[in-house]
């Protein structure tokens, strides 16, 4: 019975660990996406050249298998269970004392689950497996040493306590020799929005726009990043004028510890890419690779940017690397086909989404100061001569998103003149009717005719707003009360979204 407890503990731990990991499949997928393993001796030599390089190399190799979260989780749990048994054997644990051997692997499980935003900032490539395998190596080394030592000490008839002391010393020495890659980055579990961001990013990467929007709609308190992702999905499905229909009020994420998160690291390369800012996307993919390690994620962005920039030789360099990975070979070959046959490229959904956003304006020098969101909002608000219909909508909507009334008025004026016989989208009317009364308006919008329904609704809004003001309510309370009726209008966003913190 006592021996069976050892196995029961292992089974319970394996089930708990596997379930905990597998239920976070988007997170596991993201782990491999932020790692890179390239077959061949050049990658190996480069990796081994760094401190802890062997564990990094092994860790990166095994991290690939998180591409199939069930498989990666299975391998990881397998390593942990093996570690548990080896540890139990070294320390000669009996019965419930085997729980002691669970502790080191349970900490590893927690360390991975609590990694959260450190996934973007962790400088240990292949983190999850690097620590698991290095600790497994320690236990194997210690077990071998323990068996050999026990063999020689048997004749001296030592007590169990002395054996335990000797084995513990062996374990410590093995730990010093192996120097495990181990660190718990955070002692708090990440928030729900963190997982939503990962899920949305994964969907954007695969142009699954409906999935992006579905995730956005499920969240009442999105982060700025989620708002950007949501708007990218709307932009590429020509529904950007619905921007305020789905919560557009982003907040800074809840981040444990003292970590400062910035969108530059969280998603800038993809965001810039999706907005057609190819150079800036390329730049941040490189910067993040330098600081936090080369990853599949960044490598794919680099390929995409290089192709759109017509830098085909460097694109081929990156595809050559991706062709030596386990799971991105086909994607790389597809990109090579796009390089070879530009007719294929222009038919791709990605190209059709992004090409209209690459404005044919003159090149200019600029600096984003690491604030991707701010730069996107300013840059698009400032475009005066959009060269595509899609870009026209983007600059209008972004001016509203940024609450840049001045730019919006100019864009509205240009828009109406460019499309004199078309219906003006409701959002644009909503904004224009609001801005008619703004002092900073460079153009008098009072002469425009707006749909009656908009005019009526706006009058109602003004009336309700004034009524609540007379009650002496603060802005937050007014916003809360008006949200059920006007929460999906630009007016509500304009007056009550005050928590716009760029990070």
């Amino acid at each position, binding site marked *: 019975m006592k021996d069976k407890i050892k196995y029961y503990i292992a089974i319970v731990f394996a089930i708990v660990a596997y379930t905990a990991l597998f239920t976070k499949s988007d997170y596991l997928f993201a782990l491999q996406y932020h790692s890179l393993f390239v077959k061949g*001796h*050049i990658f190996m030599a480069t990796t081994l050249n760094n401190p802890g390089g062997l564990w990094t190399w092994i860790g990166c190799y095994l991290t690939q298998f998180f591409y199939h979260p069930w498989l990666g989780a299975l391998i990881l749990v397998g390593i942990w269970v093996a570690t548990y048994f080896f540890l139990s054997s070294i320390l000669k644990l009996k019965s419930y004392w085997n729980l002691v051997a669970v502790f080191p692997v349970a900490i590893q499980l927690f360390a991975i689950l609590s990694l959260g935003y450190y996934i973007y900032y962790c400088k240990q490539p292949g983190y999850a497996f690097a620590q698991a395998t290095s600790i497994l190596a320690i236990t194997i080394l210690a077990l071998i040493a323990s068996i050999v030592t026990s063999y020689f000490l048997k004749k001296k008839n030592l007590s169990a306590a002395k054996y335990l002391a000797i084995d513990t010393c062996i374990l410590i020495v093995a730990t010093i020799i192996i120097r495990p890659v181990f660190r718990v980055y955070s002692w708090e579990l990440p928030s729900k929005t963190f997982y939503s961001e990962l899920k949305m990013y994964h969907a954007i990467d695969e142009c699954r726009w409906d999935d992006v929007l579905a995730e956005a709609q499920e969240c009442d308190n999105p982060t700025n990043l989620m708002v950007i992702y949501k708007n990218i999905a709307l932009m590429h499905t020509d529904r950007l004028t619905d921007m305020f229909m789905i919560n557009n009020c982003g907040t800074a994420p809840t981040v444990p510890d003292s970590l400062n998160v910035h969108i530059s690291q969280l998603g800038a390369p993809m965001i810039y890419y999706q907005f057609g800012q190819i150079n800036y996307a390329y730049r941040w993919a490189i910067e993040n690779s330098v600081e936090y390690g080369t990853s599949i994620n960044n490598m794919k962005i680099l390929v995409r940017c290089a192709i759109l920039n017509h830098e085909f030789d460097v694109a081929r360099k990156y595809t050559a690397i991706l062709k030596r990975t386990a799971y991105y070979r086909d994607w790389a070959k597809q990109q090579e086909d796009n390089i070879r046959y530009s007719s294929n490229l222009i038919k791709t959904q990605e190209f059709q989404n992004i090409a209209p956003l690459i404005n044919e304006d003159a090149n200019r*020098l600029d600096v984003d100061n690491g604030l991707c969101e701010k730069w996107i909002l300013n840059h698009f608000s400032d475009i005066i001569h959009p060269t595509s219909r899609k870009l026209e909508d983007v600059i209008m909507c972004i001016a509203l998103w940024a609450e840049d009334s001045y730019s919006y008025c100019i864009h509205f004026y240009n828009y109406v003149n460019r499309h004199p016989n078309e219906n003006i989208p409701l959002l644009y009317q909503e904004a224009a009717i609001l801005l008619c009364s703004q002092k900073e308006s460079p153009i008098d919008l009072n002469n425009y005719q707006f749909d009656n329904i908009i005019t009526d609704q706006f009058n109602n809004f003004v009336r309700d707003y004034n009524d609540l003001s007379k009650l002496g309510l603060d802005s937050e309370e007014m916003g809360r009360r008006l949200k059920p009726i006007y929460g999906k209008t630009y007016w509500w966003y304009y007056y009550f979204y005050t928590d716009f913190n760029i990070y």
Partner: protein
Amino acid sequence: MKHNIFTTLALTVLMVACGRPSVPGSYTSKNNTPNIFPDYTDVTIPCNIAPLNFAVQDGCKETVARFTYPGGEYIYGDGTKVIIDEGEWKEMLNASKGKNIKVDIFSNINGEWIAYKSFNINVAEEEIDPYISYRLIQPSYVAYEGLSINQRNITTYEEKDIYNNMSVSTEENGQCINCHSYQNFKTSHMLFHMRQSYGGTMIVNGDEVKKVDLKTDELISAGVYPAWHPTLNIIAFSTNKTGQSFHTKDIAKIEVQDTESDLILYDVDKNEVSYIAADENELEIFPTWSPDGKTLYFGSAHFVYTGHAPSQDSTQIDTTKIEKETEMIQRYKECKYDLYKKSFDPNTRTFGPKELVYSATEHNMSATLPRISADGRYLAFAEGGWGCFHIWHPEADIQILDLKTGKKIDTKPMNSPRAESYPVWSSNGRWIMCESRRDDGNYTRPAIAYFDKQGKVHKAFELPQKDPYFYTFFLRSFNRPEFMVEPVKVSPQTFSSVAKKDAKKAVFKK
């Protein structure tokens, strides 16, 4: 009987494993030379360089290369790669000095062998300096992590760290390292900079290794781009206020700009700095000494700040006040450098007046990074459309000015359609090495060209690597390649321990 079978089998396996490929019996001849990577067709190489391994890139599954040299021939082939035995390569080079090695390539494409037009590898009689050093860095913009300054024995493939920033920096406190420089190709007197964490300038002065801080209240920055005097224990530096900004569309991607820069002289023994040039309307940069140490060459851009934004309407003046950084960003294409020199008296350690050597602005271009050949006759430099950081300018090329005739030499054979920058001469003046982005436009590789006694530039070749695909899979740039006649003897550990110490403050001397 069994024993015999096993022996035969073992011998067969051994023979296959050790056997050389053979030239195919039948093949179709082609009129063109093969597409090989790196491109070593018809290059001129030093007689002491490491083997020029390459890969054939014609979609073949198998390739065979026959090297015919005055002493015979060798045949190689390893899939699509041609990996040359180091001993045999040396034998070929020794026998081919002043002559050439003929290379015939045979490729098996879809089961059919084809033979390409043969090409030559010309072997010069002159050797090249056996060591080079460079900084390995991802082609990043602002970020730095995992930087190292490495030295490579180019007669073999041996490469070692000189210094690695990961040995002192932590995640929170990164350290940038740059601008390694040597006195007259020797490593007993050398330096490199460290910025941010544990910042300072590491100086090797004979047996002494020290860290100094060259920033004084009088200077706009610490020493930046260095040039160690060929015989004296003094170093000329530029001091620079450098910024970076990013192109929204241009594939140049980035501009590295100085808003202010001057030239200073640092006395290593006295730990004193003094001005060489500090004109408010001039951006002086990239000093370099003539081999006799009697002239200091440098680049300088005449740039007068207006303090106002350039007006969209040429008939009006925009009165908006702007900072220097903003103005430089807005007028970046106006910042063009010419090359100048100042005479130097080694006895009094005084400089003469500034003299124009080469006016790039006359051709609406910008010239930087001057370097003088060993005989003092030729001035190599990088020339691009504007600015000083030409490795980010795709149109930038290496130019060489014959100071005797005042005419430029044809440097097309060493340039490519992509960016070339940072030219350096070997100690014997027969080899010019530069940074080149010829492979893909983004990653910098060292390229070396032969400069013959008649002053003619030959086709450049990329620094050979053991694996021909090394450059494809290697994600770092080779920055600031410099020749050395000997390896750096100070260990990386010594540099690390000195780096962690406080820097000794330099004193400003009027």
